[in-house]
């Protein structure tokens, strides 16, 4: 029985009188893809933001790779190997694609308080960056200005940045958002290829993708975890069906 890579214990978050995260306890085991689903407004993105450190919880603990990171700032968690992608694509649009990824390499390659030398020319940073771009199919777009990429390519770039961080855990916040069928299939394929290298937390609305990828699914409704289990178990649960009433059949 191995240790969970991520453990959330009784996490609480409220905005005024609105309870957004209600006593959430959840763990992510090594190598698994753990999906979090739930209707809109269930608090999924807030949960991801608490895990990555952009929002501070009001109560509870977050334990990552055996270390209590509840009070740690986002950069500290990132350096421990917590990588994430954003629901609304978050990259550096003015920089070339390869530099977006090279910066992630730079963050863990010794000191960045270096004032001489051209960072963009450092092979030490560019080589791992290009390797990550290879994995996500962006190798031939390396010199393109990141802001000029297509939506799907930007999503792939986010993944490349995460890969370059040598993640211990990858948080994916709605990676399929805004993608057509083809792009979604490609993204799913890519994630399946990466599966097992590191655990992933997948927040997603696209049920086909969720069922293709997830080992376990936690269902978040009104800020609470209502069901945890295998995809089949979740599919059959009446509470889940009720919450998704009106959504296309799973």
């Amino acid at each position: 029985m191995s240790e969970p890579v991520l453990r959330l214990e009784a996490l609480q978050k409220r905005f005024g009188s609105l309870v957004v995260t209600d006593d959430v306890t959840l763990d992510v085991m090594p190598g698994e893809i753990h999906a979090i689903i739930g209707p809109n407004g269930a608090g999924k993105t807030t949960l991801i933001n608490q895990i990555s450190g952009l929002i501070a919880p009001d109560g509870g603990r977050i334990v990552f790779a055996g270390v209590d990171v509840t009070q740690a700032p986002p950069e500290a968690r990132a350096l421990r190997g917590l990588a994430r992608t954003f629901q609304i694509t978050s990259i550096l649009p003015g920089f070339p694609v390869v530099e977006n990824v090279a910066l992630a390499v730079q963050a863990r390659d010794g000191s960045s308080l270096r004032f001489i030398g051209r960072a963009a020319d450092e092979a030490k940073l560019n080589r791992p960056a290009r390797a990550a771009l290879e994995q996500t199919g962006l190798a031939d777009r390396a010199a393109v200005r990141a802001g000029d990429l297509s939506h799907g390519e930007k999503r792939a770039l986010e993944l490349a940045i995460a890969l370059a961080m040598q993640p211990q855990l990858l948080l994916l916040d709605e990676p399929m958002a805004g993608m057509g069928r083809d792009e979604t299939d490609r993204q799913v394929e890519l994630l399946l290829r990466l599966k097992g290298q590191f655990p992933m937390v997948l927040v997603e609305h696209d049920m086909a993708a969720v069922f293709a990828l997830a080992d376990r699914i936690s269902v978040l409704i009104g800020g609470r975890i209502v069901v945890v289990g295998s995809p089949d178990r979740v599919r059959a649960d009446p509470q889940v069906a009720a919450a998704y009433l009106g959504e296309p059949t799973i």
Partner: protein
Amino acid sequence: MTGAAMSIVPSDRAAGSGRDVAGPLLMFMMFALVPLVAALTADRYLLDLAARVMIFAVAAVALDLLVGYGGLISFGHAAFMGLGAYAVGILSAHGIDDALVSFPVAIVVSMLFAWATGVVCLRTKGAYFIMITLAFGQMAYFVATSLAPYGGDNGLTIAARNTLAGWPLFKSDRPFYYFILVCLVGTYLLCRTLVASRFGRVVRGARENASRMATIGFKVQQFQLVAYVIAGGLAGMSGFLLANSTEFVSPAYMSWQRSGELIIMVILGGSGTLEGAIIGAAAYLLTEEWLSGIIENWQVIFGPVLVLVVLFGRGGLMGMATRLWRWWAHV
């Protein structure tokens, strides 16, 4: 912040490359030739004016580092210039007029003030940051006005320019002019190097997307503080030059109007380019000289010009020059 900013030039251009050497080289050569032209035309005033342009250009280039590359709109930059100037003035009032002392003191004092205020300012973002830097600049200004032993509101005259280990190098205008030029070129080269370095890349990245940089693993505030301190120190150096040039220090050197003028110089020239700051300083000061010679209240004309430039000009003078260049290359 939505919509087009006339101010910010894209990052990839900002990092600079070999082909951009011609422009700045030409610019510095022109500055270097001014003393010869002045001698030929017996126009002493030209030398003074060019020296003034270069002095403010140093501060403007430092500000461009913050504004154009760091996205940190510091509205209190003149305070660092003033501090550097007052360092010279106060030391001189106590009989210490060796540049070997005044020069480093001016820079260190400015850096300390930048560090102390930066720690507070950088906890804020956006408009709050602008206003808190403005307020700290005002604080420095009011402290200067209340320094009765050093002239208070009226300022302090400096007996003579600094000497270099006893040698009156700056006494004569020409050698001093070239010293200023060296400082400007040094500032430019330093900032160029910084911007392309690992450090510079983090600062530039933070301007584009600070939360992304944090989730990659960078303690953004730390890097911004270092940039803020460096810019402050460089502005302090320009204050040293200003005090020596005018042989006078006054709280007006630190006024928020001065800080505003520095911002205008950076934006007018085209922020995020470094050369733009130098061009902007020249454009602003030369326009001021020219207009004030024509009518007394020249600001009545200059004010609306600024408004028009903001409303209709994009990328400042560098932006216009680039567009002109591209159009000509096309033709």
